[in-house]
């Protein structure tokens, strides 16, 4: 079977949807954060596939930027989640109820 752009895009959409589902359904901050990374990587896959099939390199360059920025985001994000965990002894979103009306 020939694997074309359509197949790559389908996988990428599936990954994105799975990530989104994880963000919405899961209750643990770390798992939510992993799902967010999955969504970013779905975008990376789409960019690389488009790059390959359109014979243009801009998309692959953007992928490098996304990987770098995601690394920065993770380092800040994990530090934040750890700081919260130290204070609350929990990484569950149900416990984030200090800010409301």
């Amino acid at each position, binding site marked *: 079977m020939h694997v074309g752009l359509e197949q790559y895009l389908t996988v990428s959409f599936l990954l*994105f949807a799975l990530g989104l589902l994880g963000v919405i359904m899961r209750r643990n901050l770390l798992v*939510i954060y992993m799902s967010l990374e999955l969504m970013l990587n779905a*975008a990376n896959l789409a960019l690389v596939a488009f790059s390959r099939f*359109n014979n243009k390199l801009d*998309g692959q360059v953007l992928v490098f930027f996304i990987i770098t920025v995601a690394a920065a*985001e993770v380092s800040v994000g994990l530090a934040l989640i750890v700081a919260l965990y130290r204070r609350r002894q929990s990484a569950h979103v149900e416990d*984030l109820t*200090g*800010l409301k009306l």
Partner: protein
Amino acid sequence: MNASLMFLEIWVVALGIVMMLADFFFCVTPERKRFLAYLGIAVLGVLFLELLGPDAPTGTAFHGAFVEDSMAIFFKRFFIIAAILVLFLSSEFSDSVPGGILEFYSLIIFALAGMLFAASSNDFVMLFVSIELITVTFYVLVSYQRARLLSLEAGVKYLIIGALSSAFMVFGIALIWGTAGTMNFTELAQVAPQFLDNKIFLTGVIFLFAGLGFKIAAVPFQIWAPDVYQGAPTPATAFLAVGSKAAGFVLLLRVLFTAIPAVTARWADFLIIVSALTILYGNLCALPQRNLKRLLGYSSISHAGYMLLGVAAISASGQSAVMYYLAGYLFTVVAAFTVIALVMQHLDHEDVSALAGLNQRSPLLATTMTLSMVSLAGIPPLAGFFGKFLLLKAVIEQGLSTPNHGYYCLTFVALAGILISFYYYFGVIRAIYWSKDTRDLSPIPLSGGAKFLALLCIAGMFWIGIFPNTVLNLANAAAFGFK
């Protein structure tokens, strides 16, 4: 290659690094820390005068990815003034920021660098990187008081929703680039009309809106705003309210009117609905609020809605109204947060009732807060009135020149929103002057810097409201030159 256009950004990044390293090399006493903040403000002031004067160079660099036009210059001036005011405010707030106020200053300056790049971005790579530079810096700024649980909680909420919206944005960029084949806004404008019925392209545009809508806190991406405004340290909230929102707007204007004008022209109804919902949501939810910062969070949603009026008008006068409104909003919001920071710094709550008797405790702060609320409500002669007038004028003009009746409904919704907002803005003023239970009437000690900042904000509000010509001419030049 024309890297000299980027001098301003390079200087700002260098200033941020120096500020961060200063902690290692100086034995820093509180006086020296304040001195370093003033030094940073002075450097930003010099950069403003030297590099953003009337004869600032224009052009493009990096194959059209970085553009310096009149709109970029308008927003860069705006961002530098915002950063100067926020640095001033942070230097007054330093008691409440344990563990290194200097890093706090340098993070503000790095966020400023992101905003400056955002003002000049003409390419999706640039858009993505600058927006992330702003957002990641704000994750740290929002959760900076890490001994306070609320600050951490606000930071985590901002982190999750921010990362979610940037994932949407990146996926949108991937789809747009995959179909249209170009990342550059100017080139995209030429090919976009071919893709008006391409579903993948339009999905990409919607996903991109999710990312930008998050930055400006427009419905349906506004959920984070009240929580984050309430939990963040007050100077960070002020910078979030003016800087980050304006960065979202400059990118929104660039994307809608430089990159995909063909799609924008078709989607007027969509913009009208988003604007109307944002105005109604912000104003209605602000009504029952007692926490002052949370109230301003909802009010900032409604102001994003007002500014979307100018975007929905899809005209150059609408864009110039947005820019004028942002300029007035800057001084108004910083004034409000200055008062909140000074009055509530040592209290354990930020309830509206803490303002009781403020007119006896500190007449200057009471005046500042009153003027700020009056300007937010949009009463002449302050900045907020003329801005709202221009936005509504742009919408009505567009309603007259197109057969779309949505514009009249939008005008009506906006007026209703403004009327509703009188209730909660005047609730704050009533708490200052006519509160019955005034327990604490001790005068509030004000440093010279705090007085200066309050007077500066009052002067800004009056100047933009009574003499609108200077700012309006700049905004018009930016909007019409940009067309």
